[in-house]
């Protein structure tokens, strides 16, 4: 049986004005378990707290009920008081008789009556309280960033600058991501490579950063502060530490016709290749699907020309086991496939291209050395049609497009159109749009400049079909403002393809037990207030893996994620919330229902041996809650069919005791 002390606060006249505090303390004195009851003007003051400490010692109290203001106000205060008196801080309960009683009820009689009932409920709860101790777990002071695009690069640099080691895992042979493929960046028109490649060099030179390029995350176990990650370093058949990146092998390799993925297949590379001149790490990689030596054992040219002796045809995939305290997801995006948009003739004509392909076409390092030449006949196009929202905002065609707005297309199309009109004023440029969305700093001004200064023809309407005819593309479109159907003979059609999360995101989310939306974007812990954290503790989100984003937004989110990671890694130990769920193993029937409702992946199942009454040993599957991951919402407690799951601090028995006390 508990020995409970009740302390009723007047809060000056805030409570005492409408509640007869003496009557409350007198009434509660007769409750089961209560051995002491008093009232005082300001319980939260030093003198008030001293009364509590004194009473604990004099009356050997094991539990405390304070009838005062909201627990959101002073629960922490009174818990400290209890600790100072030598009690477990979780043996304190607050009856909220100010915000939820004296301040909202004018009548003394009913106010006092309610205050007594609230006090009784708190006493009933404390009778069932048990001392709780928050668990502590150590923190591995190293972060993992998955994805080496601008998001991952920025996050890694910020974490490394704060003094913590970071590893970047990138599935391609080089970091840089999509931004490395872009030509200029809106709205300032800086060249993407000029602002990105110095950052890539910073990453390479930073002592706190390790780059695992051409690598993938294979498995993730553990929880916040203590993740165990398996990383597969794919065999690139070149010794990374020896290769100097001279590029001689890539010139001598006899396999010349491998589509170059960096230029989106618009030109070719060799079987051994370095994706682009500024690649980091600048190391050659052999494409095993194209290399003659690896396929048939006949060739070996690269090995002969390599003066450093870096080629190793026998290299195997390597599995690394690493430990991390925090994981940042920065898996980025891809344009969707245009295969199903027959109306735009993407698969029929080489001159119908996506905007990302257009970036490569205008890039000085691209297949045309930056000259705007159309892919089919390398002639200069004179009439160019841009189509916006190809696959974006597409509610009816889940198999084709995406329901959401891809956000970046309006701006890059304005950029493309403007750059064409700037370099080639003889070119007619049409942009067909549904809406032009430019919410960003200097964005609308940028779009208006394309229209007003550069004479880009923006037409409100959509393109209905594109038909290749001779060397022209017949474009049929609507002009909704003129009420006309337009027929344009175009030389080049550029499709603003919707963007989607990278395909690697979903399996990764499963490994992380991080939640995703139906579009495979990672969901944030709170859409407004915790936008860079995953609901899974220790997992953070950076860039377009969380939703469509342009570069400025991606970089801000990347730095925000880094700040959150640093905030986690500076701690030596994580103190948990002791009010977490726990399963009664004797009652658990191993049904996995709780595992499915847990938003944090805090529940796992283990096989455990139990001694049965007949002295045999039985192995049963039982739920186990990781207190470091559990946030204490209680969803599992209600889902549990056998009643095995309970929430410390808010146990079912405690809440029922409160209900009973109120309904008595």
């Amino acid at each position, binding site marked *: 049986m508990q020995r409970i002390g009740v302390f009723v606060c007047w809060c000056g006249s805030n409570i005492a004005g409408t509640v007869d505090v003496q009557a409350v303390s007198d009434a509660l004195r007769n409750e089961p378990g209560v051995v002491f009851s008093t009232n005082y003007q300001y319980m939260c003051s030093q003198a008030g707290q001293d009364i509590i400490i004194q009473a604990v010692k004099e009356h050997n109290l094991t539990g405390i009920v304070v009838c005062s203001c909201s627990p959101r106000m002073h629960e922490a205060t009174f818990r400290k008081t209890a600790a100072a008196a030598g009690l477990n801080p979780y043996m304190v309960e607050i009856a909220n008789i100010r915000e939820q009683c004296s301040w909202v009820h004018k009548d003394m009689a009913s106010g006092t009556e309610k205050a007594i009932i609230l006090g009784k409920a708190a006493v009933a709860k404390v009778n069932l309280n048990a001392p709780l101790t928050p668990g502590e777990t150590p923190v591995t002071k190293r972060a993992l960033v998955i994805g080496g695009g601008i998001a991952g690069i920025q996050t890694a640099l910020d974490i490394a600058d704060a003094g913590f080691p970071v590893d970047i895992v990138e599935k391609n042979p080089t970091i840089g991501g999509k931004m490395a493929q872009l030509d200029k960046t809106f709205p300032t028109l800086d060249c993407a490579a000029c602002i990105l490649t110095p950052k890539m060099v910073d990453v390479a030179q930073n002592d706190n950063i390790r780059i695992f390029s051409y690598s993938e995350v294979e498995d993730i176990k553990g929880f916040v502060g203590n993740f165990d990650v398996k990383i597969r370093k794919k065999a690139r058949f070149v010794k990374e530490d020896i290769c100097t990146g001279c590029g001689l092998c890539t010139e001598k390799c006899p396999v010349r016709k491998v589509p170059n993925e960096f230029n989106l297949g618009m030109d070719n590379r060799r079987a051994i290749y370095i994706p682009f001149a500024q690649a980091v790490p600048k190391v050659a990689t052999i494409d095993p699907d194209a290399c003659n030596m690896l396929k048939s054992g006949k060739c070996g040219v690269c090995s002969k020309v390599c003066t450093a002796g870096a080629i190793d045809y026998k290299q195997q995939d390597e599995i690394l086991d690493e430990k991390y305290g925090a994981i940042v997801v920065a898996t980025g995006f891809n344009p969707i496939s245009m295969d199903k948009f027959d*109306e735009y003739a993407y698969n029929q004509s080489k001159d119908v291209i996506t905007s990302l392909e257009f970036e490569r076409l205008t890039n000085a390092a691209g297949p045309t050395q930056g000259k705007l030449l159309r892919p089919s006949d390398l002639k200069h196009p004179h009439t160019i049609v841009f189509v916006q*929202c190809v696959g974006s*905002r*597409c*509610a*009816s*065609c889940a198999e084709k*497009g995406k329901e959401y707005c891809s956000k970046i297309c309006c701006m890059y199309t304005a950029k493309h159109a403007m750059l064409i009109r700037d370099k080639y004023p003889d070119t007619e440029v049409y942009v067909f749009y*549904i809406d032009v969305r430019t919410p960003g700093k200097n964005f609308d001004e940028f779009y208006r400049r394309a229209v007003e200064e550069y004479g880009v023809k923006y037409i*409100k*309407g*959509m*393109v*209905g*079909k594109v038909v290749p005819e001779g060397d022209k593309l017949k474009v*049929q*479109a*609507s002009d*909704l403002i003129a*009420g006309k*159907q337009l027929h344009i003979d175009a030389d080049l059609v550029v499709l603003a393809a919707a963007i989607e999360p990278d395909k690697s995101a979903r399996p990764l989310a499963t490994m992380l037990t991080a939640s995703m939306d139906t579009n495979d974007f990672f969901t944030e812990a709170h859409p407004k207030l915790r936008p860079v954290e995953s609901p899974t503790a220790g997992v953070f989100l950076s860039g377009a893996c969380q939703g469509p984003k342009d570069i400025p937004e991606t970089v801000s989110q990347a730095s925000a994620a880094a700040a959150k990671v640093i905030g986690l890694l500076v701690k030596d130990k994580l103190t948990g919330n002791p009010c977490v769920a726990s399963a009664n193993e004797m009652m658990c029937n191993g049904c996995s229902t709780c595992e499915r409702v847990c938003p944090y992946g805090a529940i796992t199942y283990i096989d455990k041996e139990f001694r049965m009454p007949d002295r045999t040993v039985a192995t049963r599957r039982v739920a186990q809650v990781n207190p470091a991951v559990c946030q204490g919402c209680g969803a599992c407690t209600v889902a549990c069919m056998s009643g095995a799951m309970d929430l410390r601090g808010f146990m079912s028995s405690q809440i029922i005791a409160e209900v009973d006390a109120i309904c008595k």
Partner: protein
Amino acid sequence: MHNDNRKIADEIILRSGVNPRKCMKCGKCTATCPAFDRMEYHPHQFVYMVETGDIEPLLESKSLYTCLSCFACVDRCPRGVEPAKLVEGVRNAVIRQQGKNHMTADDVPGKLDSDLPQQAIVSAFRKYTK
């Protein structure tokens, strides 16, 4: 009268199963329409006019009969509005409004030409005399 129009519009919406509010006014239906030049009101206008209840001009428009029902607009619409079904719904409304056919028996002689089969002329008179 306005209420009447709204009522007819609602009936059209109900019968066709089309929700014109889903339209985001992109104009892809109109861009894709092969009968554009022969239409007074174009597919996106059809959708808008039914949405706003501006039905009368539609009921009287010849555009109803120039729609080929090729369903290109249905196929291409990114929001699944299905304009062609709406056009069919309006046609249906015209037919259901007795005496409100797009032509009367008096108009038939003016449209005769020598290639027209006799049976068609007789049935046209029968149909539009009612």
